[in-house]
């Protein structure tokens, strides 16, 4: 084998473990899910193999699934927006700080050391009827009875923001940190105000990070099922809860497979849209 041929093979050799992992852990299970979505669940809970379109017909035509999907996308969009509004200033402060940047980044990473479920449940102790806020309000005499702050859509969004905000901040931070600050200095020296410099130099250059963080927050938010279970009320279910329920409670794996593929298709379409308008290269840049 020539040196050129060996060098040409090298990237494939180096990539092969990752490719095998992706194949075995992602594509093969996905193929199983696709096959499953065409099976049927019998009355006893056993699966009937075959090629049936019943699950797809139900998933695509039933208004129940459509409504929950739209509600899920709405919650994910609000969460992403809140994360962007809250995350940008935080990322800006970290990126422009001198000396204590490492400490601030460490503080940002701290929540990842605690289980997501524990972090979500901690809101019960903060917002609950006998939680910290209600106890303080009643102790101060501001209210006589606890205010109901938990188990509604707002508490679900709060839980999701708590979960996703660090992802958003990190993505924006990476983008801001990569901006050449002499460009901002140049804008100022040419007479631009600080605000105009931010709007016309800093913000456009940091958009890839903002977009990458937004995409990540939206996709993760739309796929969550723990947060609505822990912090949501009876009508705050999200689409992943339907998948969980079909598979676990109703033992209807075929329908659950069709529903999960439906969610995958919607989120996949969103990624394609992102790719069309901003390009995946921007996402990679944003991810550092």
């Amino acid at each position, binding site marked *: 084998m020539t040196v050129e041929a060996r060098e040409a093979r090298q990237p494939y050799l180096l990539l092969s473990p990752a490719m095998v992992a992706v194949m075995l852990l992602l594509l093969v299970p996905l193929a199983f899910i696709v096959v499953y979505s065409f099976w049927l669940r019998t009355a006893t*809970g*056993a699966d009937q193999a075959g090629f049936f379109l019943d699950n797809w017909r139900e998933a695509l035509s039933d208004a129940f699934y459509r409504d929950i999907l739209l509600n899920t996308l709405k919650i994910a969009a609000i969460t992403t927006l809140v994360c962007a509004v809250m995350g940008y200033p935080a990322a800006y402060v970290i990126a422009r700080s001198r000396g204590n940047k490492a400490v601030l980044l460490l503080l940002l990473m701290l929540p990842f050391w605690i289980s997501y479920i524990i972090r979500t449940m901690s809101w019960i102790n903060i917002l609950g009827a*006998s939680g910290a806020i209600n106890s303080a309000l009643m102790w101060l005499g501001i209210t006589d009875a606890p205010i109901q702050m938990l*188990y509604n859509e707002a508490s679900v969004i709060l839980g999701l923001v708590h979960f996703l905000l660090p992802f958003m901040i990190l993505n924006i931070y990476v983008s801001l940190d990569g901006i050449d600050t002499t460009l901002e200095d140049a804008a100022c020296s040419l007479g631009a105000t600080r605000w105009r410099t931010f709007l016309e130099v800093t913000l456009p250059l940091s958009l890839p990070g903002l977009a990458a963080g937004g995409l990540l927050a939206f996709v993760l938010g739309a796929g969550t099922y723990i947060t609505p*279970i822990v912090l949501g*009320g*009876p009508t705050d279910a999200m689409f992943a809860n339907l998948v969980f329920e079909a598979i676990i*409670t*109703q033992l209807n794996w075929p329908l659950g497979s069709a529903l999960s593929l439906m969610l995958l298709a919607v989120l996949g379409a969103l990624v394609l849209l992102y790719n069309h308008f901003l390009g995946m290269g921007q996402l990679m840049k944003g991810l550092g």
Partner: protein
Amino acid sequence: MDNTKRYERLRERYMNGGIDRRSFLGLIGAAGLAYGVQTPFARGALAAAEQVRFDGWGGVVSEAFRKHAFDPYTEKTGITVVDGTFGGGDEYLSRVKASQPGEYNIAHLSGVFDYARYHNLGLSSTLNEDNIPNLKYVIPKLTDVFRKVTGGTLSCVPYDYGTTGIAYNRKHISDEEMKEKGANILLDERFKGKIAGWSDWRTRIWYASLQTGQDPNGATDMDAIWEAVRTHRDLLLKYWSSGAELMSLLAEEEIYVTEAWSGRVYALQEQGHDIGYMDPPNGFGWQECLFVMKGSPMEPCEELLNFMLAPETSIAVAEGQNYPPALDPTKVDLGKKIPTLPAFDPTGKLDGLTFADPAYWNGNEQEWSKLFGRIQKGY
């Protein structure tokens, strides 16, 4: 033929020119891959005889099992009990369905309907009752219902029983009001936002049957039942999905009233919370069993079941988990605490409890669980 012999033959064919180098290396690679893939499972099978996997409801129930049954059993026999938990029979069934035979061994299942479901899915085993002599202490009525499902044999031993009654905060609801309203307290507008309910479709339909004056094992007006389920949903703070969540909601006073598992309420009362408990007429009675899955190492499992049914173990577990044991009080002295537990029947006949009819509930499971799932989410 062992692997060494296979390799020697393959090598001989290669050396003799029977196969080319690429095929030889390919076959060696494939054998290595197959060994690598099967080893974890083979290891599981080999370990099966030295360990038994047990799955239960978690929380105080699991603690009682671990402390009073598993640890002493391991100490006595050297067989490790791997202790897992689940939030409900449906969730566990899904895990079992995705597993290899023998991966899950014993489950603390609730209700004869679960037993029948698992049996219908081909997951039942046949216990050798000679290996479980302590079965003689069990209330006969409890074993008879299981035998009917599995044609006279047993795939489980009954272990405890209890009720899903109504728990209420005495600061806000008096015992008198509870007696007067019964199951309808869960539809009382006065407690809107302070009512909860288990997210289990059977329990919801059972209580809706009581609220609409119907037989919980044979409702005829399903429209009225779904309407009651919707009314309850609209008054609800949230559906709870585990015993731990139930206890937290009651203890933190997030809710004032919910249906609840008798043993969990007793645990709250023991902790000093002023929570009342009432079984309305035709309240939901259930019995739990220790179900052995098909493909499990039968002798170690039977030995564990026999150990767990020994009166001293069974009583200790019952006192720990706050559910009366399946032991017949006319045959075994159950001590002082057990007669004080909710749902305890000193006669051993259990005539005062209404159990779910497996044929009725399993026959409607597919339709009702799905419909309840929708109503639960606001439809």
